[in-house]
């Protein structure tokens, strides 16, 4: 019985492709082709439309095994569907030819239609390709790429179908690529999507894709230290470029950090990073230096390729930011103005950042204490005017607080800063020990509190029960 029941859910119309499922009950090849062609025909000149449609309809009819089916025959067809599909190689070849012709006819064509039609059209063509061509077929990648190009081809923004339905269709295509499809094909499709969305400024749409890019690269064998490393690096470089072109510096930097610090890159510390990785490292350093929100440079030192960027001077500059001072930077800037220019780094901005770091370093030694304005002015090498009233110092402190490097309270009357928190510039063993002792202190005080609460729980519990007992007794008396 159970065997038969399971059979109820078995059918040959459902095909899992990639992580998607395509269900078409009784598909009729001829109808499918006609549907697809009539949408394509809208973008053709009016005088050739009819002939275009009929040409493909005829080809599809010729390719179908039994052109005219009455209903009875169709039922038989269903029963023997598997056999037919496997047997008729000729039919399959003929169908494939139709699909090939169809796809070559949509190259460079701007598809038109409502969103719903477009979605259905994209899924239809996709299911035809997926069902007729195994992913190992030589034509498979070409056809998929033609389709994805056609889905994204549009002359202007406002045209129907909308951009979001184009994105959605391409995402469906990406998700339904079979597991056997080549990783390069996946990467190409994904990059097409990312590039297309970024040229249209739709970064929020592809944010999930960017967040997963690195894990996919690893999954597909494009991670550092693998044969596909160059391809992976090139992909990251192109995505980063399109992000930078649209002033999405923060996203670009995050992507670079994720890519350069991915596990296999760290494991292969001994191996020298490839030239393309070194280039990416340079870009990462430049972005980190120029972004006004980034002050944590010691984290970069854990990334192996950052120590050998394509421009060695940048590594030197990074070291200054990790543990040097303003004087060292001035010296560097004097002799390396060309390097700064080349990477579009502004010396004044960098100096400001460095000064803020110096301020944070000063404060991190005095958490919970007060720092006088003079000390700050000295550390920042400020030449305060006579009637400045510490205004300049205050500006710097406020900037540091805004960059969340420190927090604290300024006192104008005492001309001092009470520091409540300061980010250490680099995190050393000393900091770990300090952390351990603080945690220990917390632990101890927590234990003491726990003790008294435990006492409270016992006392409160016993007393409460007593009260309940009394009232129950009272109730008993009453009923008696």
């Amino acid at each position, binding site marked *: 019985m159970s065997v038969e029941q399971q059979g109820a*859910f078995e059918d040959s119309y459902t095909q*899992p492709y990639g992580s998607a499922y395509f269900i078409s009950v009784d598909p009729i090849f001829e109808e499918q082709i006609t549907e697809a062609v009539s949408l394509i025909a809208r973008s053709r000149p009016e005088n050739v439309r009819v002939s275009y449609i009929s040409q493909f309809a005829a080809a599809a009819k010729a390719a179908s095994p039994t052109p005219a089916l009455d209903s009875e025959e169709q039922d038989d067809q269903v029963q023997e569907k598997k056999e037919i599909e496997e047997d008729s190689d000729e039919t399959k070849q003929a169908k494939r030819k139709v699909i090939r012709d169809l796809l070559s006819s949509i190259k460079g064509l701007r598809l038109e239609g409502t969103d719903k039609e477009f979605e259905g059209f994209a899924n239809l063509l996709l299911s035809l390709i997926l069902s007729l061509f195994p992913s190992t077929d030589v034509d498979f990648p070409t056809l998929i790429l033609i389709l994805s190009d056609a889905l994204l081809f549009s002359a202007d923004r406002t045209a129907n179908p909308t951009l979001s339905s184009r994105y959605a269709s391409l995402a469906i295509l990406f998700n339904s690529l079979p597991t056997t499809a080549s990783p390069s094909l996946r990467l190409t499709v994904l990059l097409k999507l990312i590039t297309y969305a970024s040229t249209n400024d739709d970064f929020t749409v*592809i944010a999930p894709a960017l967040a997963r890019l690195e894990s996919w690269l690893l999954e597909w064998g494009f991670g550092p230290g693998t044969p596909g490393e160059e391809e992976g690096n090139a992909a990251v470089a192109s995505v980063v470029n399109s992000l930078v072109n649209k002033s999405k510096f923060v996203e670009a930097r995050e992507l670079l950090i994720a890519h350069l610090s991915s596990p296999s890159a760290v494991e292969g510390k001994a191996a020298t990073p490839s030239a393309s990785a070194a280039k990416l490292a340079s870009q990462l350093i430049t972005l980190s230096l120029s972004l006004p929100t980034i002050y944590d440079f010691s984290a970069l030192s854990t990334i192996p390729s950052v120590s050998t960027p394509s421009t060695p001077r940048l590594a030197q500059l990074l070291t200054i930011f990790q543990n040097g001072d303003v004087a060292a930077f001035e010296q560097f800037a004097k002799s390396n103005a060309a390097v700064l220019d080349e990477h579009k780094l502004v010396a004044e901005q960098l100096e400001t950042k460095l000064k803020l770091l110096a301020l944070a370093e000063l404060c991190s030694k005095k958490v919970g204490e007060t720092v006088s304005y003079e000390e700050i002015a000295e550390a920042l090498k400020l030449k305060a005017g006579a009637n400045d009233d510490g205004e300049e110092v205050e500006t710097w402190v406020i900037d540091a607080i805004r960059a969340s490097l420190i927090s604290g309270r300024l006192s104008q009357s005492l001309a001092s800063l009470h520091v409540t928190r300061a980010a250490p510039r680099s995190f050393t063993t000393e900091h770990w020990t*300090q952390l351990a002792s603080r945690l220990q202190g*917390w632990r101890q005080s927590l234990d003491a509190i726990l003790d008294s609460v435990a006492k409270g729980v016992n006392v409160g519990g016993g007393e409460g029960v007593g009260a309940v007992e009394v009232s129950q007794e009272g109730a008993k008396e009453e009923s008696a």
Partner: protein
Amino acid sequence: MSSLTLALPSTSLASTRPVSAVVVSPLPLAAILDHHLRRGNDQDRVFGTLLGVRSEADNTVQVRNAFGVPYQAQGRGEVTVDMDHHKSLLDLHLKINPNEVVVGWYATSPQLNSFSALIHNFYTAESSPSPAIHLTLDPTTLAFTAYTASPIGTSPRPDHLAFIPVDSIMRLHEQERAGIDLLTSNLTSLSNSAAASKELGADLPVSTPLATMYRLLTKVSVMLDQVLEYVRAVAAGEREGDERVGRALLETVGVVPTASQPQQAQKKGTETKGFEEEFNAHLADVLMVSYLANLVKTQTELSSRLNLLV
């Protein structure tokens, strides 16, 4: 391979609004599994309705509840789903909570089939105007996947559908935590002896604020122990520490009032003590007040009873 779900912008039309993620509560998953375990001998999977809430702000679907819908399979290619059952149960559910509407349906088999398309069409009509979702739960691996449907072909046919995966996550709501903790503690104690269940019984009459605080404090101290162990190992150079973890911890510790002044090592001891003492004193006050209040209450109770007797 993990699938890609784009964060597509919202549209004004509900029917074309994309689904960016499906958030599933543990309750419906447990209900689905329960339903699967109680299925008839002759069935290998079960279906049912998913209830939940759609968030228009971020296009997520939150699955909050589920109920089973019986069906019968007659030989190959014939499945009858009891839609009346669905309708009457749905009515009852809507009476209890009108906010939770039909968002889709579930099946306890990771494989889809052509009936999926037909059933999905029914649920699309039920959840109209918004699109329905389909959740599959694999009863052996407990993995679940959410799908949305997309038409194949320019003239939509009910039996031509592409099921596209959507990001799905399980999220425990704060309010549900207490209940889930209780359920899962029961689960773990099943493997243990009766002693554990006795302990559980002691916990059951849910608790005064103070008892809750006691439990939470114990939890915190256990977590602190874990962190301390890690930090000590790093400080002693036994293992490589993650700088980001260190920085985050240092920030957190800075927020804790008692431990915020490590630079004044001697002073710190006294200050910690000060806080403790204050806390203890306050606690004692609170206990005294509650004791006195109870005393007064008992007194009045007694006197009223006595008055009745007299």
